[in-house]
């Protein structure tokens, strides 16, 4: 009996030890040896990550995984997607089950300081937003003075709302629901004048209404919800690779490099474009990638603007305006360091 217990303890210890070692090994080498990138994604959020009718994953977060795969393998299909719930997402990354977490995850201090994670940057600026009837002609959240507001219970949704009303000194009724569908239904039936949750989810839920065009998402947001891809701490090369894939997507858009013109632009005389596409010097080697890494990425998934438009923007049913997610030159917040 004692022997059996000893054996179990030993086996467990070994498993833990191996898991620890596994997590510390070089991620890029592991991905190469495996022949595929393993990406943790949302179980299903329209525009961000959702399998289409043929079972192929599509979305903004999905294209980020494909961009990394294209940079490593020159093939955007070499990705395995692991759908994760909000609860399991960090454990899956910490344990080494996935290489990247690309799942509309908010960058917060405690997630980096307390949970061994690193955010590579912000690829989507989100915030708590409001859905309201167009006929009301609301200019700002402040105009909802005295209104009834349906809320989906969230980590800080109710708090942000109450804080806003305290700050502005106006009052409104909040009706709190556990489920987004029930909250949306109550809003649609006229119980509430507005419905609030994260903006990214709001655009998708708007499409569930019987007349989506009668409703609008107010431009004003109550909170900062910066989303970005996440990697484990302790592997700087991998962190750099994913971070620069993100920057390359932004730089490509800023320089006008698209999936359509990337081949012809290799002959461009613009030195910035030549550096980005690896026409002169090799900027990929330092990341463990080939010289034409950016060209591979853009050829496979396009630049940031193309990814945004295809999944979230004008080219998608969601029609989310670029807003804060525009390039810095266009009044947005995206500003990527240069490749040089």
């Amino acid at each position, binding site marked *: 009996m004692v022997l059996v217990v000893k054996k179990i303890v030993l086996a467990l210890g070994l498993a833990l030890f191996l898991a620890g070692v596994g997590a510390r090994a070089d991620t890029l080498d592991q991905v190469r040896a495996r022949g595929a990138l393993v990406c943790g994604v949302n179980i299903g959020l329209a525009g961000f990550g959702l399998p289409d009718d043929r079972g192929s994953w599509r979305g903004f977060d999905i294209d980020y995984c494909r961009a990394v795969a294209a940079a490593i393998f020159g093939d955007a299909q070499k990705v395995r997607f692991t759908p994760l719930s909000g609860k399991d997402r960090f454990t899956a990354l910490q344990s080494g089950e996935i290489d990247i977490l690309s799942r509309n995850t908010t960058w917060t201090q405690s997630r980096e300081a307390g949970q061994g994670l690193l955010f590579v940057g912000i690829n989507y600026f989100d915030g708590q937003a409001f859905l309201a009837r167009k006929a009301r002609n609301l200019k700002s959240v402040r105009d909802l003075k005295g*209104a*009834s507001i349906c809320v989906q219970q*969230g980590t800080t949704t*109710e708090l942000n709302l109450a804080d806003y009303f305290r700050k502005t000194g106006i009052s409104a009724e909040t009706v*709190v629901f556990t489920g987004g569908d029930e909250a949306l239904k109550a809003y649609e039936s006229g119980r509430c004048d507005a419905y609030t949750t994260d903006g990214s989810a709001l655009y998708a839920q708007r499409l569930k209404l019987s007349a989506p065009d009668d409703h609008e998402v107010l431009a004003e947001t109550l909170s900062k919800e910066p989303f970005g891809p996440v990697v484990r701490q302790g592997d700087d090369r991998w962190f750099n690779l994913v971070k620069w894939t993100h920057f390359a997507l932004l730089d490509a858009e800023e320089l006008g490099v698209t999936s359509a013109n990337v081949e012809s632009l290799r002959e461009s005389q613009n030195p910035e474009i030549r550096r980005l596409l690896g026409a002169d010097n090799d900027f990929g080697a330092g990341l463990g990638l080939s010289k034409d890494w950016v060209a591979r990425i853009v050829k496979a998934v396009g630049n940031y603007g193309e990814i945004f438009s295809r999944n979230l923007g004008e080219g998608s049913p969601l029609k989310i305006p670029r807003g804060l997610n525009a390039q810095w030159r266009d009044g947005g917040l995206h500003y990527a360091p240069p490749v040089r």
Partner: protein
Amino acid sequence: MNRRVALQALLLLLVAGVFVAAFLNARANLEARNMPTSFAFLWQTAGFGMNQSVIPYTPLDSYGRALLAGALNTLIVSVVASALATLVGFAVGFSRLSSHWGLSRLAALYVETLRNIPLLLHLLFWYIVLLTPLPAPEHSLSLGGVLLNNRGLYFPFPGLGWPLFDPARNAFNVEGGLRLAPEAAAMILGLTFYTASYIAEILRAGVQAVPRGQIEAASALGLSAAQTRRLVVLPQALRVALPPLISQYLALTKNSSLAAFIGFADLMQVSGTILNQTGAALQTLGVDMALYLGLSMLTLALMRRFERGSEWGAR
């Protein structure tokens, strides 16, 4: 004998040990994850709003007060629904026993349909049924100062004034008056009609448990049918029906925890928000369990008193 006592003591120690170990383990794990381990959060500022509360509550009040407001909402809805469910349940139960064929079949249909539908569907149904046909606040239905719209039923009330929709003051809602929100109304209707189907059956079981001889004896003594029902059948039927009836009141109180699905600020809904904000999951759920247990004990104590005080309980 001594051996048995020793064994019992050992078992007791073992059980206590498991509980202590579980407690210490939980505390150590919570500390390791930087999660709160005490009940101090109950005195911190809650920060979130609540649309219906019988005690004054603002976001500046504490989490403890928010929990109390939620618990009182649970209590009120449960008490009102229990009373209404008893009325409806007795009516349906007596109808089912009635010699009138149509009435009896109708009551049977009520019982068999309503008790076979999950309570959550009852609540969602009533919520949608209440919201869909009612007009927006600017087109409120009005009768003698009482206003009705899809935000609730507004009564004139001393101190709260007359309910009034004045776009200059509030473009969205009626101001003033005492208000019954659609969430609370749907809770009461759903719980009432669902629980009434069980209470009807309990009453039928109680009446049918009264021996036929009792009724025959009553008529032999010259009592009328009404007198027989009131003086002979009902007291004996209720004696049988009371224990399962109490179970129904307890079940109703616990069933009200589905409120968060239709936006009613009951104890569980408020706890959900507190849990999200503080991360104190074990403590919040512990307080919830204690409060539900307290409500149940209160119901039980009241019913026992009623049972002992009435002639029905005496044997």
